[in-house]
């Protein structure tokens, strides 16, 4: 390992803008049953925030609450609107859709609509029930198609796309909303490693263009790869928040997941790398090294 590590490609932390979204003392959950409590969190323009945590730790619940789909049980969730930071509950549904775009994990299309018309649904917030997409909306759709490189697929039925292609369509539809903030549920799950790198690369380039990006992710190495900051949810609270190296430690992973890992250095890049060390596998003998 004599090769020098190139610095991580994106210029990080230096270009972070104003908070697009803010949680203060936020408790969220369903019908009074709290999943997360006491969350203080800002998401800034131009950053990628990875939200990690075990199954059921509240990643999706947090996104739903930040997007205003789920009313907070306590505390405040606010979004940056033209009026400044405003509580999500005080922003009408359609205005909200222009501030924050979501990509859901398990969306399935019902009908074989074309890719372009599926993406066009992202303009609903600006056209409403009766309007049809005008010049502004059509340009938003075309820009979204261009940013996600879906041009060649634009006329294809969404029901015939592969998992990776459809995930890009969902990102494109969220972009057509022209939101300042994107919340993505497990955008890399169910994808092969090349498609995972495609979608994460797309998220990094969106952040470089000034969008605030938050994604939930299970694979800690992907989190370290893409994120400027990592938020670890564990035991009903925000257990840690900061740069990947500060949050993803062997102790934190053991405490949150009950999993034994080694956190080392990426062999090539200036990144951390997480290696599993399950109890049912014996470590190699020293002599084998």
């Amino acid at each position, binding site marked *: 390992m004599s090769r020098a590590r190139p610095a991580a490609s994106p210029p990080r932390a230096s270009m972070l803008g104003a908070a697009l979204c803010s949680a203060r003392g936020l408790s969220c959950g369903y019908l009074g049953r709290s999943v997360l409590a006491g969350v203080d969190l800002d998401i800034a323009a131009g950053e990628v925030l990875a939200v990690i945590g075990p199954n059921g730790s509240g990643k999706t619940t947090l996104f739903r609450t930040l997007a205003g789909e789920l009313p907070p049980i306590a505390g405040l969730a606010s979004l940056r609107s033209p009026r400044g930071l405003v509580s999500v509950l005080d922003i009408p549904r359609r205005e909200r859709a222009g501030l924050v775009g979501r990509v859901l994990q398990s*969306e399935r299309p*019902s009908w074989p*609509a074309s890719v372009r018309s599926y993406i066009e649904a992202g303009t609903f917030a600006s056209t409403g029930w009766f309007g049809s997409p005008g010049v502004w909306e059509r340009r938003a759709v075309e820009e979204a198609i261009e940013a996600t490189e879906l041009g060649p697929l634009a006329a294809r039925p969404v029901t015939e796309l592969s998992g990776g292609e459809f995930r890009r369509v969902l990102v494109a539809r969220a972009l057509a909303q022209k939101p300042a903030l994107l919340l993505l549920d497990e955008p890399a799950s169910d994808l092969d490693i090349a498609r995972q790198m495609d979608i994460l690369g797309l998220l990094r380039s969106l952040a470089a263009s000034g969008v605030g990006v938050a994604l939930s992710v299970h694979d800690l190495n992907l989190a370290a790869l893409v994120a400027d900051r990592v938020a670890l949810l564990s035991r009903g609270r925000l257990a840690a928040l900061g740069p990947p190296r500060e949050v993803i430690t062997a102790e934190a992973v053991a405490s949150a997941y009950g999993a034994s890992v080694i956190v080392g250095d990426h062999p090539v890049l200036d990144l951390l790398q997480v290696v599993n060390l399950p109890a049912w596998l014996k470590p190699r003998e020293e002599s084998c090294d």
Partner: protein
Amino acid sequence: MAAVLLFAAALLASLCFGAAPLTPGQVVRALLSRLGGSAGAGGAAQDGAARDFVAATIVWDLRLARTLLAGVAGAALGAAGAVLQGLFRNPLADPYALGVSSGAALGAVAALSLGIASPVAAVTALQGLSFAGALGAAALVYGIARASGRRAPTAALLLAGAAVGSFLGATVSLIMTLRQRDLQRVFFWLLGGFGGKSWGDLAAALPAAVFALLVSMILARPLDILGSGEEAASSLGLDVARTRALAVAASSLGTAAAVSAGGVIGFVGLLGPHFARLLVGPGHRRLIPASAAAGAVLLMIADAAARSIAAPIELPVGVVTAIFGAPLFLWLLSRRGPEGQGA
């Protein structure tokens, strides 16, 4: 445009068939004879074409009203099917998924149980109560689904629809068993038919059907958005609850209009949207009117077939739609794409 031509062709063809077959030329002459007003009618008499006069009577007094009524009922069922398939995001949903048919049947049974002597009043009561029963069942189903407090009220709608439908259906069977005197009348009413329907019946059904179609058209873009799923649609800015309420109201109103006019006619509301989806694709802005047109054409053809196949005996039109509709539906299913998502 093509839909209008198809509609006109089906209307013309439907007017030709029946116990006394007419040629298309006779039908067109008969239609024109009275469109010219009283002067035109006088002209026809002066020509002394007695056969044309008979044809005009058959067309105007017997066939046109019932054929148009079949068209209106078919259009209402087709549009209702498209709206409910859009709401449930399921191509197998039909206008009766919310228990509307059994509600209408219960209303009809109740009307017959009143034992009204006057035939005109009896028919009015039958149509009125079946209409009320249909809407009542849908309202009950909607209320149950809302009160269930589940996080997926649309799924609750389907389940409540099935449960309420079975319950009301069993109630109808119970009443019919206890009052066997009315058994046959209820039975034939349920099988559906447009025999003996008049301009008055058309006037009674038209307002609800037209209103339901207009509300359905308002739902076109929301139903497109809903195709992404409820959570995604909500994050796109759609008020899903309002969409759901309007979709239930519009489809139930249209279905109630159709059922009270012609009985419980199956497959039209299922097949109409499937044909329409093949022709114009899945976008609801074109799919809903196309489904209405397809439903109208299907039911007018079915009504013509019901009059002609075993003439002079008239078959129940619901029997015709089921006998021809079921195989047709299976054929359509076999054309679905590998994802099982196609038309």
